[in-house]
């Protein structure tokens, strides 16, 4: 199947999914930006100086899925289908039911076998051309040690995203946008905000109060998903820990399914997700983030006009994406996950050199 045919089928199959790609044009743009040409997977494309390149998609890709998010596995499925590779997914033992049924439907639509594993198969992994793993640093090292040097390996570690509420920008509309990006994917993804930093203390208090109001209201229109005992326990413990550090909480004593913490201690913690958001006052916001360098994914800024001036700080802290507050969960199709291209890192290249002499 040629690339364009795959593009059409992928666009049809994923229509209506919020994966940042909506049309054939989007997918073609992604191919062009990442690989240089929309047909480069099908034929050699001249590059100048008598050289042509053809991109070679991996014959098979072994994916190790995260156990907390369907959406990352869905994106892996989309990209794998776009490349036309054979796909193997190692899912968590507890399963990713929504993703698994999507993968089975894709196998029928695309006429390609898609393997879903519940236990890790190191032989299958070692036979794959490429391996994509989501996991802790420890997990990633373990997997890497099992691979051969010729295998391409993409790993995505745990990262957090944060928002920056600049002075005089905190409106109810901003809080409403923030609440939506907090609620998306139960706040478990790397693009989920864990905290909003407010250089101005009074504004931090106002923003925390507004967030509490809008999160409470959101429960009526977009209620929290049911939670397991373990999830509730982790939220309970995070609330207790926040109180222990002398912080002010909204939502906890009222037994609400959301939590806002105004962190007087100026300390950013990895929250438990599930609508647990920290508002951190402090003019030196980059110092608050310094301990998280290397673990920062996206920075959302409340005032788009200030993006340029904040880029040096964002770069220094190691963010791989800067966007407008409210857009954290809607990355562009050209987003580079953890700062790396999503297709280009998977392919290899055939160079054809013509003798012009």
């Amino acid at each position, binding site marked *: 199947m040629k690339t364009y045919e795959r593009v059409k089928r992928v666009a049809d199959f994923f229509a209506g999914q919020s994966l940042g790609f909506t049309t054939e044009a989007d997918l073609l743009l992604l191919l062009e930006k990442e690989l240089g040409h929309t047909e480069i997977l099908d034929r050699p494309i001249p590059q100048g100086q008598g050289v042509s390149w053809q991109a070679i998609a991996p014959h098979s890709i072994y994916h190790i899925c*995260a156990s907390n998010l369907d959406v990352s596995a869905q994106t892996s499925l989309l990209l794998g289908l776009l490349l036309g590779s054979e796909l193997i997914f190692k899912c968590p033992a507890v399963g990713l039911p929504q993703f698994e049924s999507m993968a089975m439907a894709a196998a029928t639509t695309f006429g390609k076998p898609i393997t879903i594993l519940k236990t*890790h198969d190191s032989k299958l992994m070692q036979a794959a051309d490429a391996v994509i793993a*989501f*996991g*802790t640093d420890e997990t990633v090292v373990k997997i890497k040690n099992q691979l051969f040097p010729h295998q391409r390996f993409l790993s995505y570690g745990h990262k957090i995203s944060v928002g920056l509420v600049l002075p005089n920008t905190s409106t109810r509309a901003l809080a409403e946008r923030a609440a939506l990006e907090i609620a998306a994917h139960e706040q478990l993804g790397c693009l989920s905000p864990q905290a909003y930093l407010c250089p101005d203390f009074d504004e931090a208090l106002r923003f925390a109060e507004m967030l509490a109001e809008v999160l409470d209201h959101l429960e009526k229109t977009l209620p929290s998903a049911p939670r397991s*005992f373990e999830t509730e326990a982790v939220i309970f413990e995070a609330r207790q820990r926040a109180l222990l550090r*002398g912080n002010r909480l909204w939502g906890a004593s009222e037994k609400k399914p959301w939590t806002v913490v105004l962190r007087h201690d100026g300390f950013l913690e*990895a929250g438990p997700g599930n609508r647990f958001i920290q508002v951190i006052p402090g003019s030196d916001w980059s110092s608050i983030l310094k301990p998280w360098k290397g673990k920062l994914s996206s920075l959302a800024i409340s005032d788009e006009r200030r993006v340029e001036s904040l880029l040096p700080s964002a770069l220094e802290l190691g963010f791989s994406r800067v966007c407008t507050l409210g857009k954290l969960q809607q990355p562009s199709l050209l987003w580079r996950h953890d700062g790396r291209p999503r297709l280009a890192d998977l392919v290899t290249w055939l160079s054809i050199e013509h003798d012009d002499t």
Partner: protein
Amino acid sequence: MENIIIQAIRNDLSEEEFSQTALSLLRWQAELNPTYQNFLKSSGLRGNELNNWADFPALPVAAFKLGSVTTFSPAEAEFVFETSGTTGKSTGRHYMKNGRCYERSLELGFKRFMPDLSRHRWISLVPSFSSRPHSSLAYMLQHLSTIIPESRSMESVTDGDFIIDQDKLLLLLNEAQQSSQPVALFATSFSLAQMAEHLLKRGISLRLPLGTVVFDTGGYKGKHRELAPADLLNLLEISLGVPRGQVWNEYGMTELSSQGYGKLADGLHRFPPWIRVRLLDPATGAEVAEGEKGLLHFYDLANVHSVMAVGTLDTGLRKGDAIRLLGRVLGAPERGCSLPFEL
């Protein structure tokens, strides 16, 4: 306050006496323990306005990692017990002004729940207190050895790093096998597993004398893969010839001064009357009904100079007068599409 608590630590403590003493102690701690006082303040509570011990929230165990949890200057502590934690994690400290309440609680609790071990030969796979002066477990065994006659000659075969001298252990166990004196073997779960696997690897299967007791203090701490209780019991039965009903398990924490005891095969632990266990629904903070899973919150009178109310991430359910432990809730999920997967 310490003398009042010493008086209260007794096996016939009534419900009413517990309630009154607990309320006095918690109010006293709310006044003198700055960490607990601040925690109550953040929670919108004042100790002197609470009229029931169960209305006092439990201080999360994390508090012991963040700073000192004391009603006195930590510099005056006679003992500082440290949590072993897992590799790379910070250590918690329980500052003890003295050992009076801890020792009384241990002595009465041990004698209440454990069979009489005064005629047993005591062998320990727990390092000595002199080699681990910040281990509450090592201290516990040292103290037991001062109150139980035969335990005074307790033989320890483990160094300060929990490395077992397997040859010396085998010598002692062989000697024990040939005598009629039963053994009381004290060890963490990982040491028991290491010992049993080592014996079996060498093809050794012992038959220790009738009445031998294994006292499992729990914990794998990343030193051995975690075994299901049934698997550990199996290993002990095959390697030592100790029947399942003779293996006891102790539930203890560095942050507490009292312990729970139970037979490993039953999976049920009982606690003495001066420590109460509340099982809470994390979603509501309310106590769960009997048979329902809850988070374990302890109210331990023997924690006189630190904090009586300690909240954990351990889970369990109540079954009559006992608690079935169900393990610890894993910590906060990692961010970024990345919970660890099972390799």
